[in-house]
């Protein structure tokens, strides 16, 4: 619907060309799993092809912009992971200090590295990667205004995007399959519930701060076992209603970054008590030693603590966890970087280890290596279903 309006608007505009560009990337991803899968329908190795292209067109001296970013993944085994998405499809009009956006966009809020609590506009495209940093395009009308008191943003989101989950043959999933076709919503409007959000962000000297408020469908579903028509037991996503107040804060001093993200939430799940309040925070430091190794290598230390007040069956994975990591930037011609992070659950000692490295090859290629390990996974932890899913991934990307 929005897209149709968007195209209609575009067709009416005079073609005053200013800047137009297509840029694309084609990726091939290989994953090797160290252990046999828990479910015989899953596989040891997996190949995937991805393609993303971005088209943008600016006119009226950049006062207007149209962006179109389709994305597709073809997966060897997992039919749920093979999917198409419009990461972006929007039109922007600038009026002085204000910007109006109509269409599908990606918006990021927050400052921390190990967990993104405040970031809520976009749904996670979870089949892409466990870290949830890949996002689905969110349909919206948004207005942004910049003045001396900071940036003010209003979002109205008329259509909800469901989280993506691995299919039967995919790894990195719960033992029971999540059946998105059986999704349930707290709101009678289901996906058509109109979500809204407000954000204020500002820079005051060495402080970067943001305050946000969200009202609408929670992006994170509760997964409830249910028997479906064919007698199979599956996990049914239930999307509650959520009000969330968020704060993100960064203090930058010398080689130190001090970071904090915090949320206060009120969930309406339709069960008693109807309104459940909770809070969560993630905060810590990043310190960098510059040029300490030969050839100007920078070594950073990341230390973050994750807290969530929810417990029992509501408890998320990161509720009393500590994440320690290092970021190594080699500052070479190929932009070689390495990020290693260990997150430990302080209640159960379950450990999640992630190592990511990337490097450019020539002028138009890059290679990314990623290893994810799940250790000391106790049956009562959320990592338990992933206990045999340690993997090594290599991605080759060609840019053109």
């Amino acid at each position, binding site marked *: 619907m929005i897209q149709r309006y968007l195209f209609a608007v575009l067709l009416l505009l005079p073609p005053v060309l200013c800047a137009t560009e297509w840029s694309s990337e084609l990726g091939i991803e290989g994953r090797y799993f160290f252990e046999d899968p828990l479910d015989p329908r899953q596989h040891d190795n997996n190949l995937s092809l991805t393609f993303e292209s971005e088209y943008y067109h600016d006119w009226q001296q950049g006062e207007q912009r149209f962006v179109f970013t389709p994305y597709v993944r073809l997966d060897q085994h997992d039919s749920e992971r093979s999917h198409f998405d419009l990461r972006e499809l929007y039109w922007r009009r600038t009026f002085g200090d204000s910007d109006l956006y109509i269409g599908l966009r990606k918006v990021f809020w927050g400052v921390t590295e190990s967990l993104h609590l405040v970031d809520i506009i976009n749904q996670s495209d979870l089949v892409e990667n466990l870290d949830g940093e890949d996002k689905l395009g969110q349909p919206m009308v948004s207005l942004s205004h910049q003045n001396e008191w900071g940036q003010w943003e209003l979002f109205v989101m008329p259509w909800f995007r469901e989280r993506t989950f691995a299919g039967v043959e995919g790894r990195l999933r719960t033992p029971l399959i999540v059946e998105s076709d059986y999704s349930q919503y707290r709101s009678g409007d289901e996906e058509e519930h109109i979500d809204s959000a407000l954000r204020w962000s500002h820079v005051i000297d060495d402080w970067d701060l943001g305050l946000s408020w969200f009202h609408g469908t929670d992006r994170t579903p509760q997964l409830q076992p249910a028997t479906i028509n064919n007698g199979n037991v599956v996990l049914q996503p239930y999307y509650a209603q959520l009000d969330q107040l968020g704060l993100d804060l960064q203090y930058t001093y010398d080689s130190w970054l001090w970071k904090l993200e915090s949320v206060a939430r009120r969930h309406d799940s339709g069960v008693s008590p109807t309104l459940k309040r909770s809070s969560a925070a993630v905060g810590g430091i990043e310190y960098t030693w510059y040029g300490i190794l030969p050839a100007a290598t*920078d070594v950073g230390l990341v230390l973050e603590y994750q807290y969530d007040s929810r417990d029992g069956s509501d408890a998320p994975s990161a509720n009393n966890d500590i994440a320690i990591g290092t970021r190594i930037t080699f500052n070479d011609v190929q932009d070689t970087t390495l990020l290693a992070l260990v997150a430990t659950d302080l209640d159960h000692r379950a450990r999640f280890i992630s190592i990511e490295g990337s490097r*450019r090859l020539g002028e138009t290629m890059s290679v990314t290596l990623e290893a994810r390990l799940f250790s000391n996974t106790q049956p009562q932890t959320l990592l338990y279903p992933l206990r045999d899913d340690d993997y090594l991934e290599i991605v080759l990307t060609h840019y053109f």
Partner: protein
Amino acid sequence: MKRTHSQWLLSLVVFMPLIPAAAFASDDGTTQRGLEIAIEADRRDSGFGDSSSSLEMTLRNRHGEETQRQLRNKTLEMKDDGDKAIIIFDTPRDVKGTAFLSFTHKVKSDDQWLYLPALKRVKRIASRNKSGPFMGSEFAYEDISSQEVEKYSYRFIKEEQFDGRDHFVIERDPVDPKSGYKRQLVWLDQQEYRIWKIAYYDRKDTLLKTLVYSDYHQYLNRYWRANIMEMINHQTGKSTRLVWRDYRFKNGFDEREFTRSALKKAR
């Protein structure tokens, strides 16, 4: 070289912290003369308002193998502070769309933000990496950021003639202890106060790099910009050549184009 009283007063206030150092460091007036040359060079380049340009970097390793980077740059001159700048990366293709915002300051450390287009994320980064290489080149962040008079203490060394020009040679010592340099020797021509050469000495006072400027052009009948800058690292044998193109002044930029939200929209 006429100056109003208020300008004198201003430079007096701005350089007050340097005065005791000047008083003790030198009896022969070389400190004063070095500072005067730096102030005059700065004065001649001030008032440009804003500028934009594109830049091609050629990185050459000791075997002569080359790689290219293309960037675009927008600068806004600030009245009582260092410049604000946005740099947009066009190539290599994997970092295309990445943009860098900096607020340079005369005394305190710069503010810097990086926009990562894949995540649509703006990150405030620590500005203490000034001695680190910029995009894997032989230029450090501190070499390319706005050169404010207050960032160094000065000493006049000598006069020298080459390429048919008379030059001043001054030494400047970075005030910031985190700088990668102990000192720099700067050659400016006496006619226009343009920099033609800088020799960089590392913390051990060994010659590290030499930067040579060439192909100067004058804009708005006043401001000189070198189209070519060649940095040679004597310790590694690597070099980086910068070729500046499409210099434009008086674009009418204002501070709203140098914010985090503008960084996300930069193309």
